[in-house]
């Protein structure tokens, strides 16, 4: 091949030399473009490098919140009132979910979990709105979980996690005291975010769950995973390598609450209350103010209220005329005759009556041209204070009131703890009401009238007390004058079982009342049950001596309740009360029974209390037999038979 004639020879004209300057332009153009790229790289890698480095770290890191187990709530004997059990919760992780066929995934989810159209809509919405995770179903059944796990490949971005779910073994018994959990609402979350709450977190509602939220709740941990672009975790070794010590923050479990409550006692109360639709029972240890039972009826089942509440259940609760959500142990009602302890103390302390002073009851008391009737038509005849308590003689107290006046009576009401809150740490307790002249001037349409004192003295009129207040005041009588703050929580323990804090019993005050006065009242209360003619004599127990006071509170609801006739009759029925303690000579338990619209205290409330006390002391005997085999209990047992 000739080297010179492959292509036509160039003519003279523009030689290569002409190009010289153009190389400069080319090089300048190349350099300019490269400088632009370098400038861009400088901007991305040097100026914003740290920011993008964080972005790249965030890309591969997925934080999974490790919810801390909530502390348990225990009764005084270690029986569980609230605990955790595992629940399988279904989540959608939008960052994966969105990159696949969302319609198909949702369709499958809907079929497996039987979701409603509304739920599907909500999930789709929240997945679109950049949520980090969307809870689809809490507490899925094992069958549902199995179906999801089997079909995992067709459900990208769907995750099953084992969380814990709250469980309340006593169900509806004591639900007001124990409480339940519900998902924190949007506005709550905004307030609580600083304390580590995140969407989907549960928060205590009602009772101990609410009041001791900070104690029961632990603090959440974090599990950091390194994931790839599809959100698939990259394994332990890689994760340790890339983020090392930052891999996880262990959750701190919540603390256990050991209450003073007695689950067995509350269950026997529930049994005893079976035939009554509405009421409250409070039991207390008069020796230290420990609350043994707080029972309000009707109740709710906290197991069905925790988490997803069915709308049917909610509607049923809302429409129930007996107000299941209301804690009746701390709501105020007319006390009726159980208030006569206060009146007796006032009469004796003010020197108006001595222990032996007698009043003659003819069945009514004349005052200002009006006849105030005793509940007993024929009257009680000659009664002293013990007799007056025993037979619940109204006339005796009318006379007392006539001479003392309403304000002096009120002083003793306050002395016994009425008219102010007892200091129970849970629920919104009512202060009740101890009416005075001043109060009547402000609140009664007709202003204060002297006759009001005669209503007040027998627990009628405008006096309102809560069953808890009654229990605290009767405990004070039983223990010789110590008015306690009710103690509901004994101690707080770590999840490991160490006692972190112990609550001491706290005496609010010593009643400013002579021992002799208290003794007299106690004698009267004992006579109510133990002596023939006492209003609860027929309900007395064999195995234990009980002291107490019946109460039948007329419901003054003239015009206030306009309901259908059939209901009206019931709504206007009297409240039945029985406030008691036992054994009467050495009291270790106070039981106050309040039955809404149930009728007479003696015939209705007293038997409930007696049943509770009977079982309580039976069990006590059993316990002592079990623990002390070498005592003479055997012979006592055979005697009883």
């Amino acid at each position, binding site marked *: 091949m000739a*080297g010179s004639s492959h*292509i036509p020879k160039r003519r003279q004209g*523009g030689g*290569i030399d002409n190009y010289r300057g153009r190389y400069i332009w080319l090089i300048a153009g*190349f350099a300019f473009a490269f400088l632009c*790229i370098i400038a*861009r790289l400088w901007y991305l890698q040097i100026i914003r490098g740290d920011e993008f480095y964080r972005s*790249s770290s965030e890309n591969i890191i997925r934080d999974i919140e490790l919810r801390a187990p909530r502390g348990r709530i225990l009764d005084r004997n270690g029986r569980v009132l609230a605990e955790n059990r595992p629940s399988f919760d279904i989540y959608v992780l939008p960052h994966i979910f969105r990159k696949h066929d969302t319609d198909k995934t949702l369709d499958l989810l809907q079929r497996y979990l039987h979701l409603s159209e509304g739920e599907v809509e909500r999930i789709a919405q929240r997945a679109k709105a950049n949520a980090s995770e969307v809870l689809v179903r809490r507490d899925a059944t094992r069958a549902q979980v199995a179906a999801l796990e089997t079909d995992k490949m067709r459900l990208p971005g769907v995750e099953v996690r084992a969380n814990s779910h709250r469980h309340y073994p006593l169900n509806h018994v004591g639900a007001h005291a124990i409480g339940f959990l519900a998902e924190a609402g949007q506005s709550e979350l905004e307030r609580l975010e600083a304390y580590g709450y995140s969407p989907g977190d549960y928060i205590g509602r009602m009772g101990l769950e609410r009041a001791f939220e900070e104690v029961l709740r632990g603090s959440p941990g974090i599990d950091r995973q390194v994931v*790839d672009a599809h959100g698939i975790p990259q394994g332990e070794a890689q994760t340790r390598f890339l983020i090392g010590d930052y891999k996880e923050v262990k959750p701190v479990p919540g603390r256990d609450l050991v209450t003073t409550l007695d689950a067995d006692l509350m269950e026997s109360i529930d049994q005893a209350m079976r035939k009554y639709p509405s009421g409250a029972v409070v039991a207390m240890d008069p020796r230290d103010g420990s609350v043994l039972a707080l029972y309000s009826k009707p109740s709710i089942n906290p197991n069905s209220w925790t988490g997803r509440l069915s709308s049917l259940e909610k509607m049923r609760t809302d429409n129930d005329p007996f107000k299941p959500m209301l804690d009746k142990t701390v709501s105020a009602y007319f006390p009726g005759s159980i208030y006569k302890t206060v009146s007796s103390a006032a009469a004796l302390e003010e020197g108006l009556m001595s222990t032996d002073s007698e009043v003659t009851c003819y069945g009514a008391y004349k005052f200002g041209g009006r006849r105030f009737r005793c509940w007993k038509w024929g009257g009680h005849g000659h009664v002293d204070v013990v007799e007056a308590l025993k037979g619940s003689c109204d006339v005796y107290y009318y006379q007392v009131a006539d001479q003392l006046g309403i304000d002096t009576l009120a002083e003793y009401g306050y002395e016994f703890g009425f008219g102010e809150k007892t200091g129970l740490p849970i629920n919104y307790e009512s202060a009740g009401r101890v009416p005075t002249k001043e109060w009547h001037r402000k609140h009664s349409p007709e202003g204060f009238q002297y006759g009001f004192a005669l209503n007040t003295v027998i627990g009628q009129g405008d006096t309102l007390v809560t069953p808890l207040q009654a229990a605290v005041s009767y405990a004070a009588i039983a223990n010789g004058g110590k008015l306690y703050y009710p103690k509901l929580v004994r101690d707080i323990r770590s999840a490991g079982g160490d006692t972190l804090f112990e609550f001491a019993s706290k005496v609010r005050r010593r009643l400013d009342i002579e021992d002799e006065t208290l003794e007299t009242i106690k004698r009267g209360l004992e006579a109510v049950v133990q002596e023939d003619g006492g209003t609860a004599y027929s309900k007395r127990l064999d195995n234990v001596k009980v002291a107490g006071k019946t109460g039948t509170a007329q419901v003054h609801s003239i015009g206030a309740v306009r309901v259908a006739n059939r209901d009206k009759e019931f709504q206007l029925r009297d409240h039945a009360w029985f406030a008691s303690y036992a054994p009467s000579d050495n009291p270790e338990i106070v039981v106050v029974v309040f039955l809404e619209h149930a009728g007479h205290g003696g015939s209705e409330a007293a038997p409930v209390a007696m049943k509770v006390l009977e079982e309580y002391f039976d069990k006590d005997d059993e316990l002592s037999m079990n623990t002390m085999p070498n005592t003479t209990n055997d012979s006592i047992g055979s005697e009883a038979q």
Partner: protein
Amino acid sequence: MQGPSGKLQLLFERIDWPLLLIVGTLGGLGVLNLYSAASATGGFALHTRQAIWFLTGLGLVGLVALVDYRVIARWAYIIFGAVVFLLVAVLLVGTELNGSKRWLNFGFFMMQPSELLKVAVIIVTARFFHDQDRSEPYGLFQLAKPLGIVGFGVFFVLIQPDLGTSLVILAIFGTMALFEGVRWQTILAVVLAGLVSLPFVWSFGLKEYQKDRVISFLNLDDDEYGKSWQVRQSIIAFGSGRMWGKGHVEGTQIQKGFVPEHENDFVAANWAEEHGFAGMLFLLGVYMALLLWSLRISSAARDRFGAHVGVGVAALIFWHVVVNLGMVTGMLPVVGLTLPLLSYGGSSLLTMMLALGLLLNVSMRRKPLMA
């Protein structure tokens, strides 16, 4: 005249070692980089295949360098015609992938004739300007003929459709024409015509997906998981490399699969993430060296054809590098252009090697072989 063996010996003595060093460096970087990218894909020895392609490519360089470029120049129009024939064949019997008909299936090898067109256009344009031998700048009228020839080829690429390749071929031609000399009035007219035709091109010329790319380019932060996701993740990969990079095979963006096509068009993201700004400067330095060396070869060429081939090859590399880096760093909309010698893929690599073979050819024949 010496015998063929003596001529070969002379040729060997004139091998352009600096050029081969630069090419070897880029190819080596490419394989190294793909080793890291391949470990992201997992188990698939991309880098091994790339190494094989590269060595094959070096053989091709040698082969091309053997044939005197003036023979190639002589056959310029025939070569161009043959490539256009292949492009027509693509339209008729080509293999379709992702909505574009770009490939001819030879069983063992999927050939992309539009890649060959890049080289063919360099050859045919060099030949054209060589023949004209003008000293005055070209006007629109004088440029009509070569533009018509090139445009004829580009037309078949455009209807495949392959906008990126079409544009880069026009850019190569444009660069060579500017180098040859164009009247400033003509440049102005072309720029104005381009601006005026832009709305029409938008309405009638672009496919929906192409419009989407431009739109997503213009509002990058609009939709994290939408169309700009790829570029966004690529930018994060670049930025997160900071000054010194995260280290070889330690780039989380690539390794965890956040950047799709990280072995192909977005291969620079891997390099930038693992080797940082410093690594990118080094890479750009090597490319600049290649460009400058190409121009040096061009300026030393014995004839205008050789000079134009040098410029054309430089233009080919330049536009690929600039457009590719521009798009992966979010400065330009995404068009499918590879990063020369670093992106994985036979067609792209062999095209570059073909072009570099021409360059070596010109370099070795800057003086008559006979002393």
